[in-house]
């Protein structure tokens, strides 16, 4: 009554005026990101066996991978994620049998051009084939030709 509440309110806002600010100046400073955060993907190429289970697990068909047979092993040549369809559910990471696919803590995936948005994790040529594998490769190509 008689403005007691008004004075109290003014006191609160005046105190708040001098209190430390909660804002974090984003590009310069950043909140700590928890370990389980679903950020940008990383692929440990040496562990990957190009089985394609991640691509199968994906509900949005984000992952496309290309592989070549080098010798007796599958060799991953291309691993691209159409990250604009990704919902970061983590099914691909769970499905990986060799624990090669991981989330990182990178949250900033903005790009200026649309063509830069897809996340290219692997893009490489298959190594030069040895004599045995050349035969194997030619056999497969013959089959495809038929």
């Amino acid at each position, binding site marked *: 009554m008689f403005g007691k509440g*008004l004075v109290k*309110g*003014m006191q*609160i*806002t*005046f105190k*708040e*005026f*001098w*209190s*430390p*600010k*909660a*804002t974090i*100046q984003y590009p310069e400073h950043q909140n700590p990101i928890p370990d389980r955060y679903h950020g940008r993907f990383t692929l440990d190429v040496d562990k990957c066996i190009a089985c394609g289970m991640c691509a199968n697990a994906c509900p949005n068909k984000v992952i496309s991978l290309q592989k070549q047979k080098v010798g007796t092993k599958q060799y991953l040549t291309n691993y691209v994620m159409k990250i604009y369809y990704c919902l970061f559910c983590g099914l691909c990471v769970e499905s990986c049998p060799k624990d090669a696919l991981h989330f990182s803590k990178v949250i900033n995936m903005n790009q200026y051009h649309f063509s830069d948005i897809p996340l290219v994790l692997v893009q490489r040529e298959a190594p030069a084939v040895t004599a045995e594998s050349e035969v194997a490769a030619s056999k497969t190509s013959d089959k495809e030709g038929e």
Partner: protein
Amino acid sequence: MENLFVGIADGLRSSLGGLPPELGEAIVMLVKLVAILVFILVNALWLVYMERKVAGYMQARIGPNRVGPKGLLQTTCDIGKLICKEIIIHKDTDKVVFMLAPVLVFVPTLMVFAVIPFGKNMAAIDMNIGLLYLLAIASTSTIIFWMAGWASNNKYSLIGSMRSVAQMVSYELPMVLAILGVIMITGSLNMSDIIAAQEHTWFIFTQPIAFLIFFIASVSECNRAPFDLIEGESELVNGFNTEYGGMAFAMFYLAEYANMLVCCAMVTILFLGGWHAPFGLDFIPSWLWFFIKMYIVMFVIMQLRWTYPRIRVDQLMGFGWKVLVPLSLANIFVTGIGMYIYRAIGW
């Protein structure tokens, strides 16, 4: 430092000595008016920035801090952007009145600043009915808000401007009645005389109730929160300036802050001792004291906005007519009796 601006005016006058005296005086007057114009616009820009900073700080935010050093150029950029925008005039407006309102909105404010003494001998025009002039001119701004709302041909604008007329007219009354107490003590309408009478005691101590009434009424006159019913972003889509865009909107926006400046100057002059230095701190020049006091009042008004919620229309009118007007009348009565007793004692 004390006579900086007075010295500049005198120097200008003496350098124009070769010209006929009327012409020289006219040029000095023109320079003064341009200086006031620049002062108002720079202050309005600064106040928009200050408002956003104060708002941010009271909400545990930082406020604008990216454009220019500490974000100081933020408002300048905003105005630049608004200048670039098209002013849309839709087909049902009363076009002449619609465009006239944002042009005229600065006029009362500018005219009022002519009589405000910013420091010792620093009023552009030292008028002997300065206070009357100020009140008369300041109340014409009601018409401009009405023009804007009426010409917009929009129901929100119309409601907003009707509220503005009702509010400004009904709060003018307690405002003037509160000033009456001060005028009774000083016996003058001249602002310099009123300030001179406060050399030993500010009127905030002798007329505390009048100060409160005047302060509340002037916050209401500037349509500031908690009396910002005429804007009412959440209910009236910004009231009278809904249809305005671009620079026309910017004029209303800046005029709001210029009006605040007038109100703060008025509070300073009438109740806070104008340019008198408190505690004998005379080494700070008088005009600086005036600004310091003005900005303290400004800060309080901004704090009010970020503390209290908007009140209802019926509460607003009830408070104005049932509380402030009787209280200010009682204040006049008590002041009269007090003056009579003082005279009887022989002080």
